[in-house]
């Protein structure tokens, strides 16, 4: 009896078969084209890997190198490779014929020092942290409440779910612009009308110059922060509700029945059954939304407008975020942008690590 291991590649037939031995073959097997396994691997991996190597792996390493080169700047005809640009820059810096020779580049940790002591970067770090710390928990709490409420009803559930999902399928830039107009600085703007209805005075929410035109309170960090947080909570609910709803659907109804028999109150059911059993989804949402909030960029510029690098205020840096800082420096001071990107990576890794540690204690499963 021949033993054929079907896990093995086609060419590895038992020795006696290959040698043309007259052992009986198990039924008639249609011969497959025997391509060696490494060719198959190559064919299926190559298309993606070529692009990943050029546009994902290489840039990560290359940008990290740039972060360690003081005075780095792209040189003409030196490609995008950091080291070749480095040597070209040295050559150019020593070239007496050049009218404006570039500064001499050298390897150092100075870029990180420059970024970490840059008041604009510290400001951006602070802004991003504030946005994250307020908007993420707020969004999670509201979406959790909405999901539990949705889960407890039968009529109109699909209707409400569809409405709550709408922001997810809408263009982010378009939404930012709608919020810009909702919070328009004229006293007649929708939000200013609501404010006046409750006896407040109109505010120039995101426009740095409107207080000169209209009788409105000047734009401040607070007024703009309110708009940014309102928009990010509003837009963030959709995805979280969807994930929580799919999590709630998997919770066994027996737990709730048992609690009902014991006469457990609603608050207790929520805190002792729903939240613990939903903890994998809550953990997943927390980690992704913390990272997402730390990368906030387009939603802010789409609300503030006035140029892709405007983050409000007359200086245009009122609510600059970490990603905004990277793009602001990308053209003028590349090594600073690269160092900022590396710092952002470290922050993301730290957030993930901390959450992993917390989840070990808190997530049931």
């Amino acid at each position: 009896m021949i033993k054929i291991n079907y896990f093995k590649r086609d060419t590895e037939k038992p020795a006696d078969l290959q040698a043309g031995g007259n052992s009986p073959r198990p039924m008639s097997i249609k011969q497959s084209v025997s391509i060696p396994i490494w060719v198959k691997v190559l064919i299926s991996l190559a298309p993606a890997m070529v692009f990943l190597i050029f546009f994902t792996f290489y840039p990560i390493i290359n940008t990290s190198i740039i972060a360690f080169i003081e005075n780095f700047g792209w040189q003409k005809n030196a490609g995008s490779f950091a080291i070749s640009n480095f040597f070209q820059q040295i050559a150019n810096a020593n070239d007496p014929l050049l009218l404006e020779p570039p500064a001499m580049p050298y390897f150092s940790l100075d870029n990180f020092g420059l970024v970490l002591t840059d008041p604009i970067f510290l400001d951006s770090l602070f802004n991003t942290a504030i946005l994250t710390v307020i908007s993420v928990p707020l969004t999670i709490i509201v979406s959790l409440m909405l999901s539990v409420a949705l889960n407890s009803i039968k009529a109109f559930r699909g209707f409400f779910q569809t409405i709550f999902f709408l922001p997810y399928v809408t263009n982010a830039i378009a939404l930012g612009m709608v919020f810009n107009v909702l919070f328009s600085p004229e006293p007649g703007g929708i939000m200013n009308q609501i404010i006046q209805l409750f006896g407040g005075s109109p505010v120039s929410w995101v426009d740095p110059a409107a207080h000169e035109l209209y009788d409105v309170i000047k734009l401040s960090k607070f007024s703009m922060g309110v708009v940014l947080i309102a928009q990010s909570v509003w837009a963030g609910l959709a995805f979280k509700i969807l994930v929580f709803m799919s999590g709630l659907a998997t919770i066994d109804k027996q737990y709730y029945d048992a609690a009902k028999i014991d006469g457990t109150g609603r608050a207790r059911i929520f805190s002792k059954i729903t939240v613990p059993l939903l903890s994998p989804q809550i953990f997943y949402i927390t980690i992704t939304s913390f990272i997402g909030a730390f990368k906030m960029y387009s939603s802010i510029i789409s609300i503030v407008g006035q140029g892709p690098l405007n983050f409000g205020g007359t200086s245009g840096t009122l609510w600059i975020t970490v990603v905004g800082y990277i793009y602001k420096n990308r053209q003028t001071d590349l090594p600073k942008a690269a160092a900022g990107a590396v710092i952002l990576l470290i922050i993301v890794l730290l957030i993930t690590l901390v959450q992993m540690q917390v989840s070990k204690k808190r997530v049931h499963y």
Partner: protein
Amino acid sequence: METKQTTVELEAALSPEEKKALHQIEKGEVIDDTRFQPTYQKAKDDKVARTIFKVLTYVFLAFFAFIILAPFIFMISMSLTDPTSYNKAATEGTVSLITTSPSTVNFGVILGGINPGSAAFNALPAELRSTITRGAVNFTPYFLNTIIVAVISTAFTVVTTVMTSFAFARLDFKGKNTLFAILLATMMVPGEMMIITNYQTTIGLGWENSFMALIFVHGVSVFYIFQLRQTFQQIPNELFLASKVDGYGEFHYLWRVMIPLGMPTIVTITILNVMGSWNAYIWPQLIANGDNLTLYNWGIEWTMKLVSNGLMSLFTSDYGSFDTVKIAGSMIISAPLLVVFIFFRKYIMRGVSRSGIKG
């Protein structure tokens, strides 16, 4: 039905006093048996509390549904508001959520359909008229560009994702797990790290302001590969062995078994990628913000902007001070995805909840 049956069964086991009390409850009379009164009252209270709670739940949901819907209602109504009367309303403080002076002129401005000299043009506010005379906007090329990029990049992404996931899920090779771990690790890296170098690489390749840069540079997604590999791995091994016994190779198995079984995930990937292309902003803004170079050399001016970039440039141009035109731009760009959503609601929601992170 079930409760009624239980009641009948219970009734049989009741004592005469209890039966009397039950009779009184059914008639709505006050029970004179003192033993039952607290429970009866409690049940009554509970029912009231439950009803109140249910009403509160609906109020809570309706309130948030309104908050979610309000910007959409505002967007639709604002884009259909006549610019002249809006300016008047804004200064007088009478802007409302629903427009009082409907007009489609804003869409005409956005699509370049309002020619100087026409009656519609003359009805516009003077400032908007002079802005149009200085340079008209036209969103049509943005739409065409975005559709081209969305279709080709989605096809490219789906093919590379299927091939790569197949290799990771089905083929055995040295260093497979290490390679996959490295791929997953890149998901943590902020896109800005890639963009800084990719911008220079793309320019070096001569891909600035071309479809190549928009389609291929970020065309391979590790996230989708991860998703599809998970799906592929759930396919029972027996199916593979069976096809192997029939003498079919791995690629045949991929085509005949894995792709059909992985179809829900592939559809999800397609949906997410189309949505991603439609919403792409940062990378196109950097690399494709001008005219197509090849066509330019042929003497044709064709902008490479995608919808989001076109919208943002409308916002930052002189048109940015005309709220109704601005919102009409937002509306016309959001509408296609919203329409697609209405038709494929279940598919999209299921797909997104299955997959996870946006963009």
